[in-house]
């Protein structure tokens, strides 16, 4: 287990972490501001991946695929908010969970009808399919490095929008007292639709960037969604900063666990026992981490103020 290998896996963890962050940011904003649980957030991730893939094949340009994928997910998100989800803001979380569960079934099957059930392969653009040299002497895929850069860029942008712009001020105001904001003459319904669509586009971005790394297939969003829940619980609901820290912790712990837990355990217990216990424990690691965080801080690491 050389330093170079560990460093490479750390980068992989970071790349997985920023993907989780893009999902978690949208989910936590919608939760914190509208008090709405959106299980179908994973479906938007899937929709983003499929739309970008289809658009890239159609136009022949990766960047056009990204642009159309983002615009498409934004539109799909705003559409489902206006048609179905808007009426559920006033309901309890149970109703929201159930209705968005129905949406998941719908989207997974719709995607299967349009593109089939088999996994599709997306490839990174040719200008990102090379490797870059790391200072440790090993080489790292440029595409994964680009995801990390984009992830942190979006995080910075999000921080700027939420804390430094008028739109962000309205969003924060809407989170603390929606009636008051509406009384001051702000169109709160439009604001909610925008925030929802914005969150959807972030999920779509995560999905379309993940496409070339994992398979693009129906149901791809739910696996990520549940890990994103872990991120939001660890980070604290409604907190974008918590989402960033939680996502990077979860991404790194999960990736390092899958890579190194089995060989590490083999040095302590017998190799065949490690062979079966290693992967089992690795896949449970982030949930155990969540339980540990909850035991000490039930509100997460960075609870949002005034929520």
């Amino acid at each position, binding site marked *: 287990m050389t330093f170079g290998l560990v460093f490479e896996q750390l980068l992989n963890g970071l790349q997985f972490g920023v993907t989780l962050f893009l999902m978690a940011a949208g989910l936590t904003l919608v939760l914190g501001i509208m008090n709405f649980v959106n299980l179908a957030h994973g479906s938007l991730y899937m929709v983003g991946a499929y739309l970008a893939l289809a658009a890239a094949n159609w136009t022949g340009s990766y960047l056009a695929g990204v642009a159309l994928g983002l615009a498409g997910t934004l539109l799909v998100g705003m559409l489902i908010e206006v048609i179905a989800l808007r009426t559920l803001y006033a309901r309890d979380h149970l109703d929201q969970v159930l*209705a968005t569960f129905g949406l998941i079934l719908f989207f997974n099957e719709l995607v299967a009808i349009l593109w089939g059930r088999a996994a599709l392969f997306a490839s990174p653009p040719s200008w990102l399919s090379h490797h870059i040299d790391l200072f440790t002497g090993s080489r790292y895929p440029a595409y994964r490095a680009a995801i990390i850069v984009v992830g942190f860029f979006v995080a910075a942008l999000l921080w700027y929008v939420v804390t430094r712009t008028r739109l962000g001020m309205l969003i924060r105001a809407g989170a603390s007292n929606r009636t008051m904001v509406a009384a001051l003459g702000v169109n709160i319904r439009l604001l909610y639709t925008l925030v929802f669509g914005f969150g959807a586009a972030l999920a779509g971005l995560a999905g379309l960037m993940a496409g070339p790394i994992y398979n693009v297939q129906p149901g791809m969003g739910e696996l990520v969604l549940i890990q994103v829940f872990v991120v939001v619980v660890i980070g604290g609901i409604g907190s974008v900063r918590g989402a960033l820290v939680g996502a990077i912790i979860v991404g790194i712990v999960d990736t390092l666990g899958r890579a190194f837990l089995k060989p590490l355990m083999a040095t302590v217990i017998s190799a065949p026992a490690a062979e079966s216990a290693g992967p*089992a424990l690795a*896949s449970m690691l982030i949930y155990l981490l969540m339980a540990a965080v*909850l035991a000490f801080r039930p509100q997460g690491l960075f609870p949002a103020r005034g929520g």
Partner: protein
Amino acid sequence: MAARKILPWLGAAIILALLPPFLLAIGQPFYLDLARRILILAIAAVSLNLILGYGGLVSFGHAAYLGIGAYAVGILGFYGVGNGWLHILAAVVASALVAAAIGAVSIRTSGIYFIMITLAFTQMLYYLGISVAEFGGDDGMRLKTRSLFPLVDLNDPVAFYYVALALVILSIFVTHRIVHSRFGMVLRAAKSNESRSRAIGFSPYPYRLAAFVISGAMCGLSGALYANHTNYITPNLMSWQQSGDLMFMVILGGMATASGPVLGAFALLLVEDLLSGWTQHWQVILGPLLILSVIFFRRGLAGIFYKADA
């Protein structure tokens, strides 16, 4: 008054009891299989109703106990233990222990945290099921033998059906007794007003945890039966879709009603069967139907039969 309440139950029990001879007479044994599956999952729905309907604990991870009950039967069978009583005991005890562990952490939280945490823990068990290759891993595992009981042979579809029916009735009865006991009163009080129940001296945590454990154990029983029903266990029993299905059974039927979960199990699984016989893309229809039912059909099926009963 009492007769008016007992009569519908008696009628439903008689209809369900007459179902096997009727289905065999018209030559549709497949529907006996479906009816048995519905009854077995109805037990799980009844158990979920105890914490979701009466306790207000929105557990999005109830499929965990279904899976643990099923794996208890499968693993004991794998090591050559066929005794049905041992299977049931192991299923119930294992589910209760896991429910105690999960409940102890999750019930400290509330609201949306509780939903996400119960879901996450169940997902953890799902991944555990996938990664343990000895017991089939991702592909699942065929049971070596169905649970063996004296007098009753579960290989006989009709006998198994009556076992399932008897256990559904038992689980409804047990839930009814729990809900109307002093314990159940505290549980319901904590749901309707937590701070008031604290003020009169009841801390909800131990009551909720106990209900969570009882519910998990009952669902484990359902899982043990389900393993015998399919003769096959797979991690999919613990998938989040299965948890969602169980929640929908309770909601469609009517939360916090005695008959709701059973009505909901019949409604959901019959609609699923109908749609899936019609098109392979049935979920594209079921999804919007479920959304509409959440938005417009708020009181559930039991609400049709019992007009505002407070």
